[in-house]
Every structure is written in structure tokens, then in C-alpha cells.
């Protein structure tokens, strides 16, 4: 049994003991779940009338519209953040000191500020100076959310890409210059494609963070999925109580499913990248945003180590909010 460094393959006595712990552990977990379910059932949250509300067309439409709005914000913010991230990463690698400093300052500032505060400030700004900015329409919340997400995640993606640049062997760049390639060619033909390729799992994982953070729209009362859910629970009275518990269960499942689908994609890309014999080290998909320096748990000596170390070198690894 080599799966763990911590214990030997259990002998007869250890197996017996583990079996006892297993039974106790299972009972404890089942007990906890049963307790929660019983309590919720006592309060009538599993009554058929309560769950029947999800059969109403307008309830379904509210949830569906919430999902669409969330995905719309995510798609736009995700795309913008990737573009911004690429621009910032290139700007940070620039030879002109002013551009480099500007990009670095932008990245550091927006990475250090909680995303919620950026979004809120943008929202208030749009509301206050709507006419001065030539802003028309009622989309303040939408744009505050999209721009806030794009700016914050763009700063993080820029750092991810920079780690990708660092992972490209120095000799390649030298060889490219020796062949007479221009700086822009080195960037677009050599560094960027390899950086994207090696950091793709990390980039997708950061997109998961973007997706989760769309729920901050709730706080600026923008009608994405969470806000729609809150409105729904707030206005639906069944058997004398608001249907918070069922709505939270349903919406929670939707969020977990969406995020897991995206992180599944990241893991798949990572595995695929490992298999490909391109010589490009592929970063681990596992939570770059929270723990980018951590080595890949499944494969500590795997090909990721190099890219990971490069990622660790960007000393304050991409943080996250939300």
C-alpha cells in the first residue's frame, strides 16, 4: 500500500481497528445528515406543497433566467478578463519601464482589493455619474459586475500567464532572437502560445473562480442567479414560511454542478496536456487561485513541478476573492 506515506499496509489488528473506526465514522456522518434532515423535515421544509412550488412555470422561469443572466455575466467577464490578462502580461514583460510599472501597479492594486469593493465602487460610480459618463439605460449593475470581474480576474490571469512565460526555457527566447525574430514575434509566436498551453488548467480554474464570483452581483442587487433565488424565496410563502431552504438547496446544486463541470474541464485539460509529448510542462488544475504554490498532490514528482515552481516564483501567487 503505497498510496500514503503515513501508514503501512494494515495488518490483521489494524484492519480490525480500521473497520471499527469506519463503522463509527459512517454512523457519525449518517447521524449528522439524519439529524439535519429530521430537523428540516420537522419544520416542514420537505413537505410536498413546498417542493411543489418548483412546478410553477414562473418559478422555473425565474431560476432559468437567473442561470442565463449568471452565464451571460460569466461569459462576457471571462472573455474580457482573458483579453485583459494577456494585455497586462505582455505589458508587464515590456522593455519600456513606464509601461511595465503601469501594468504592475494595475495588477497589484486590483489583486489586493476585494472584488466586492471594486464592484460596489463601480456600481456607485455608474449610478452617481450616469449622465456625466454618457451612460444610458438601466444596466449599471450588469456593467459594474462585468467590469469589476474582468478587471480583478484580468489581473490574476496576467499573473498566471507571467508564470507561464517564466516556464518557457530561456534558450528558446534566445534562439528566437538569434534567428532574427522581432520582440512582438517572440511574444506572439513563442511565449504566449506556450504560456497559454502550459497554464491552461490554471486559467480554466481561475474561470471557475470568476463563475463563483458572479454571485457577488447579489450584493449590488443585480438579478443574477443568487439574487433571483433570494427574491423567489422572499416572495413565496408556503405553509406559513418562506421557502429559503428548498431554494438554497436547488440553487446550491446548480452552482456546484456548474463549477464542478468547469473544474472537471480543467482536470481533463491537465491530464491531456501531461499525456501530450510537447515538452511543455502543464500546470496542475487544482486550485491555482487559492493555492498556486502547492505542488500537485497526485503526482509530486510529475512534470508539473517545473511550472509550479515558476508559479511559486511570482511570489505573491494569484489571490482570489469571492
Amino acid at each position, binding site marked *: 500500500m*503505497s498510496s*500514503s*506515506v*503515513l501508514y*503501512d499496509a*494494515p495488518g490483521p489488528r489494524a484492519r480490525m481497528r*480500521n473497520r471499527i*473506526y*469506519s463503522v463509527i*465514522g*459512517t454512523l457519525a*456522518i449518517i447521524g449528522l445528515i439524519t*439529524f439535519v434532515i429530521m*430537523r*428540516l423535515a420537522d419544520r416542514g421544509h420537505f413537505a410536498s406543497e413546498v417542493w411543489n412550488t418548483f412546478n410553477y412555470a414562473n418559478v422555473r422561469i425565474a431560476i432559468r433566467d437567473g442561470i442565463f443572466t449568471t452565464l451571460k455575466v460569466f461569459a462576457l467577464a471571462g472573455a474580457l478578463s482573458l483579453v485583459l490578462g494577456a494585455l497586462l502580461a505582455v505589458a508587464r514583460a515590456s522593455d519600456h519601464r513606464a509601461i511595465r510599472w503601469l501594468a504592475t501597479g494595475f495588477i497589484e492594486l486590483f489583486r*489586493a*482589493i*476585494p*472584488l*466586492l*469593493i471594486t464592484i460596489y*465602487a463601480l456600481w*456607485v*460610480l455608474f449610478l*452617481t455619474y450616469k449622465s456625466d459618463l454618457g451612460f444610458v439605460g438601466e444596466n449599471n449593475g450588469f456593467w459594474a459586475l462585468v467590469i469589476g470581474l474582468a478587471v480583478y480576474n484580468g489581473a490574476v490571469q496576467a499573473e498566471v500567464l507571467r508564470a507561464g512565460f517564466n516556464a518557457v526555457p530561456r534558450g528558446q527566447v534566445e534562439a528566437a532572437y538569434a534567428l532574427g525574430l522581432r520582440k512582438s514575434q517572440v511574444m506572439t509566436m513563442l511565449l504566449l502560445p506556450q504560456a497559454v498551453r502550459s497554464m491552461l488548467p490554471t486559467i480554466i480554474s481561475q474561470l471557475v473562480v470568476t463563475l*463563483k*464570483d458572479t*454571485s*457577488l452581483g*447579489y*450584493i449590488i442587487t443585480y438579478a443574477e442567479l*443568487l439574487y433571483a433565488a433570494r427574491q423567489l*424565496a422572499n416572495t413565496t410563502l408556503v405553509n406559513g414560511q*418562506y421557502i*429559503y*431552504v428548498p431554494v*438554497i438547496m436547488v*440553487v*446550491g446544486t446548480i*452552482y*456546484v454542478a456548474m*463549477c464542478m463541470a468547469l473544474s472537471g474541464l480543467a482536470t481533463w485539460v491537465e491530464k491531456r496536456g501531461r499525456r501530450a509529448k510537447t515538452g511543455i510542462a502543464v500546470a496542475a488544475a*487544482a*486550485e491555482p*487561485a*487559492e*493555492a498556486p*504554490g*502547492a*505542488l500537485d*498532490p497526485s503526482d*509530486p514528482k510529475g512534470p508539473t513541478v517545473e511550472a509550479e515552481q515558476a508559479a*511559486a516564483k511570482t*511570489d*505573491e*501567487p494569484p*489571490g*482570489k*476573492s*469571492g
Partner: protein
Amino acid sequence: MNVLLDHFAEFREGFIGTVWLTVASSVLALILGVVLAGFRVSPVPPLRFFGAAWVTLFRNTPLTLLFLTIWFAVPQVFDFGFDPWTKALIVLSVYTSSFVCEAVRSGINTVPLGQAEAARSLGMTFFQTLGTIVLPQAVRTVLPPLSSIFIALTKNSAIAGAFSVTELFGWQKVLSDQGFAIAWLFLWVALGYLVITFTISGLFRLLERSLEVAR
């Protein structure tokens, strides 16, 4: 500029609120995370499953949804109520613990196999191996990711402000509702967060340096 000077008391209160919430949830998240990591590497399948389920669930749920859950769903299960500050503390620690767990677990996996084998051949038990051999070594690998996790936690605590807990974001919200210029408020609040996050990364850099060993 005047906004800060005229309302320095509120600003200070918000700043202390953020620091206090961050420190308290960091400690709780660290304890929870280490326990969960212990679960995830233990030889007992249900505990491993529990740890994995915990991490998957809380890593893929938006923090705002967790705040909503503890505000509206958890009181349905437990009769005793919590004050908003405690609720925020619980949510932030539970959410962050899943990230701490993963960081600690991957840290444990970077400890060379031979170390643990040597410990076991000396007759150490699971807990002795974990406590005296593996964890102390894992700590060094885990420090950089932990630093970014706690920085993320600081920033996440802003969401608590939106749920009526006294901290920096709440201060900004109240004052901007009173009609103060948002740009200045934004700048001051941002500065407050920058001070905290730079302190955290500085502290961790010190820790890393003091724990550094030749390997």
C-alpha cells in the same frame, strides 16, 4: 481626504473589525483545515470520503450563497441563534478550511516517502508519524499557499460587511450611502486592505525565512 479625517472613528472601527474577523477565521480555518487534511489521508474510508465531500462542496459553492445559507437555512436546523459576527466567522472558516485542507494535504504529499517509512520502522504510530515527522516538514511547503489563502480570506471578509457585520466594506457602504465621493472612499478602504494583505504576506515571508532549512 476629509472623508477619512472626519469619519476616522468609523474607519478605524471598520479596519479593526476586518483584522479581528480575519484573524479569528484564519485560526479556526487552520484548525479545521488540518483536521480535514488528517481525515483525507487517514486509513479510514468514511473519514476520507467526508473530507473529500467537504472540500468538493465548499470549494464549488459561492461564498455569498454560503452566507445566505447560514443566515436563512441553518437557523432552521439549530434552535440557538448566532449573532451576525459569529455567523460570518463560521462561514469564512468553513469556506477557507477546504482550501487549507487541500494545501496541507499536498504539503503532506511532498514529504519524501522514506521519512515516514523510517518513522514507522522506528515503531511510531499514525499520530506520532503525522505529528512529529510529516506535519512539521509539510508546514514549510504549505506556507506560501497558506499565505495566499489568508490573503484571499481577508478579501472575502468584505462580503461579511454586506451582511451587516462591522468591517471595512460596511464602512464604505454606509458612507457612500450618505453621499460621500465614492472614489475617495474606495481609495481609503483599498488602502486599509492593502495594509492588511501586505502585513500577512510580510509575516509569512518572515515565517518562511525562520523555518528555512537546507535540503
